[in-house]
């Protein structure tokens, strides 16, 4: 009997449906088998310390039998990617090492599990951690004992310099003749600018070198994380310490304006060509290729730089962010580790945090390239000598300041990125205009958030 065209189509459609159903059933049938082995996914940025954490995590797997899976995202898309994940209540991450500025939003939006009860039960006390890291990574509201994360990776902005270039007698002599002092790591931004100018365009070993590398990145947080290191030290404040959210006269004070001008002068006088949109990686590349005398970057990268065969070892030195006329601070980096509220493996995730908080694990974390925030590690007598950058790290962690950690931090950050980049890199307007506009932007954001913003 001949089959009609309609019949043929029906058979094809039936066959396709059967195939689809078969595949779906197989997938469903295989699911329990995959879920039998316990697994945790930890989300963080893709950078040197993340590799150290993978190494460290092997011990946890050995002890607990829980497999660790990692989701590392490059810094430039780290916030976008994970805030999107948290916002959409995704289940990708069980544990997240989230940026310090996320803490307000994560707490208010209940993206993270509050850890107070867990800490109390497991006898984990925040007094055991460096105060700046507890304030920066764990507390929301700030200065209240409400903890949403365990300090995981202490970090701050520091500087590296070419110790071998600084030590050359002919360079030393020329510098002394010009400035009347020895060439040494700068203590103030004025000294830093002099040194940067001195090296700018200089011929060293037949190669043209440049004075300094500073953050200028536009897209995520780069230029803000760079400029604040100067702004804080010249007198910039986020708001009136006595009247929260009153920014007029603090963000755009005369001292803050001067600080912004200094950052622009440094960018104009002493950076390598093309550094118009540069952040951590570009700084590492510039330093490793022997292009710059001094580099601004996060302490997290310093272990890797010290091990670098070309510029590490005796050739590299480290110094704390220089002071300004009105203070001595540096930008806080680093992150805390939190349990994601939508995770289906919260008990295992808490187990990881309990394991991670142990002094022996924290000690190993520091030894293999992470930065512990545990006092037992960093206050140990041998710590300053445990790495060439350890003393500068300790000093820096005592003078850190952080950006806003409000739930609206992303808007506040992007507004600052725009205003500062417009002024510093694109030569748009004056420093005063840039900061005035920033106050206007921030006022609008806080008002949208329902905050009362006093203008005077």
């Amino acid at each position, binding site marked *: 009997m001949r089959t*009609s065209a*309609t*019949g043929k*189509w*029906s058979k094809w*459609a039936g066959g396709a449906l059967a195939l689809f159903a078969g595949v779906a059933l197989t997938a469903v049938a295989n699911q329990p088998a995959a879920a039998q082995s316990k697994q945790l996914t930890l989300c963080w940025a893709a950078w040197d310390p993340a590799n150290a954490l993978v190494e460290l995590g092997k011990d946890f797997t050995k002890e607990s039998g829980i497999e660790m899976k990692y989701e590392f995202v490059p810094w430039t898309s780290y*916030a*976008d990617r994970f*805030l*999107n994940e948290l*916002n959409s209540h995704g289940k990708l991450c069980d544990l997240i090492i989230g940026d310090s500025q996320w803490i307000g*939003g994560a707490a*208010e*939006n*209940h993206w993270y599990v509050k850890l107070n009860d867990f800490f109390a039960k497991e006898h984990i006390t925040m007094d055991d951690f460096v105060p700046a890291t507890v304030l920066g990574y764990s507390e929301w509201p700030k200065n209240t004992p409400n903890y949403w994360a365990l300090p995981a990776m202490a970090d701050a902005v520091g500087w590296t310099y070419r110790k071998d270039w600084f030590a050359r007698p002919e360079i030393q002599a020329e510098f002394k003749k010009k400035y009347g002092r020895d060439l040494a790591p700068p203590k103030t931004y004025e000294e830093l600018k002099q040194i940067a100018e001195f090296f700018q365009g200089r011929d060293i070993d037949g190669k043209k070198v440049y004075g300094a590398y500073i953050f200028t*990145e*536009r*897209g995520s947080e780069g230029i803000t994380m760079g400029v604040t290191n100067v702004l804080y030290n010249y007198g910039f404040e986020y708001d009136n310490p006595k009247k929260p959210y009153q920014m007029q006269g603090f963000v755009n004070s005369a001292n803050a304006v001067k600080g912004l001008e200094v950052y622009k002068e440094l960018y104009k006088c002493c950076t*390598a*060509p*093309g*550094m*118009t*949109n540069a952040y951590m990686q570009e700084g590492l590349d510039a330093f490793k290729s022997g*292009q710059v005398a001094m580099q601004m970057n996060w302490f997290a990268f310093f272990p890797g730089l010290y091990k670098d065969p070309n510029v590490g070892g005796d050739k590299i030195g480290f110094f704390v962010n220089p002071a300004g006329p009105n203070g001595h601070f540096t930008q806080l980096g680093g992150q805390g580790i939190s349990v994601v509220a939508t995770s289906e493996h919260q008990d295992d995730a808490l187990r990881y945090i309990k394991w991670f908080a142990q002094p022996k694990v924290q000690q190993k974390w520091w030894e293999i390239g992470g930065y512990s925030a545990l006092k037992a590690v960093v206050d140990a007598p041998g710590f300053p000598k445990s790495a060439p950058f350890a003393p500068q790290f300790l000093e820096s962690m005592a003078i850190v300041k952080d950006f806003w950690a409000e*739930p*609206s*931090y*992303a*808007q506040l950050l*992007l507004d600052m990125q*725009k205003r500062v*980049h*417009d*002024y510093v*890199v*694109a*030569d*748009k307007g004056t420093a005063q205009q840039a900061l005035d506009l920033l106050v206007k932007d921030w006022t609008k954001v806080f008002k*949208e*958030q*329902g905050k009362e913003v006093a203008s005077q």
Partner: protein
Amino acid sequence: MTAIIHPDAGADRIGAQARQAATRRVHGLSDRSIAWLFVAPTIALLLAINIFPLIWMIRLSFTSLNLSMSYLPLRFVGLENYSDILTDDDVWIRLQTTARFVICSVALQVVIGFGLALLINRQFRTHSFWTTIILLPMMLSPAVVGNFWTLLFQPQIGPFNYVIGLFTGIPPSSFSMTGEVALAPWTIVLVDSWMWAPYVMLICLAGLRSIPDYIYEAAEVDRASAWRQFWSITLPMVMPFLMLAVLFRAIENFKMFDMVNLLTSGGPGSTTELVSITLKRAAFEKWRTGYSSALAIILFVTVFGAANIYVKALNRVKQR
């Protein structure tokens, strides 16, 4: 004319129709039902991923929703988001930047693309090889293009600055194509044209090849010069294709995001911040969902309106 009708023909026809109907009934589905069965998944997908989000977005555009502060109560704000956008100087500057980018890059692509199409249409010996070579850039991913042009434009090691230096004597590291306010807008125009001029060429080539040879032969007989043939035959007959290419490229460039984001991130400052970058920042970095929904709708209406006017013009050209 006499029609010879077989006495059994009517009965046969009736019999065939009855068999056909019976087959339909046997399988339980009519042709119409089967057609719907096959179209339904597409319609469902279209509704789920296009129409529903569009309606949802229109709704959100009248609210104060900010996903980074989703704990705040959702307020109906009426046209506040729209008025905020339309009275924001920054948004107008971004729209102007986008318009300049669209006009410059589409104009350049049309000139280069049409020029290349005229050359390739001569069908010289290696024209197929050159067509493939010319088409290569548009086959690349914008992410790849953005990344490798970033390297090419690197002031110290990038070959672009070196070549410019070689011909002009300007020191290669003295300028940055992506980092200088005066150069960055032209840089994105240049890269976009490099990538998409071949696309315009392809459309123009289709137009050129659709012109019948006999028209040129008639023109030759009438002793029309090459220039006259170009103005009176080639250009008018290719015009609908050219206008179509302009429409496609203008819509694409209005939405341009990936390549510019990779090349300049909208910088230096906000010099190359196209409106699509502003939209992405508002929606997925600042999480201003209500505001960004309103901006997206304004952009959609703008593109849709402009495209409609343009299509009407295109139809008029076709009817000539």
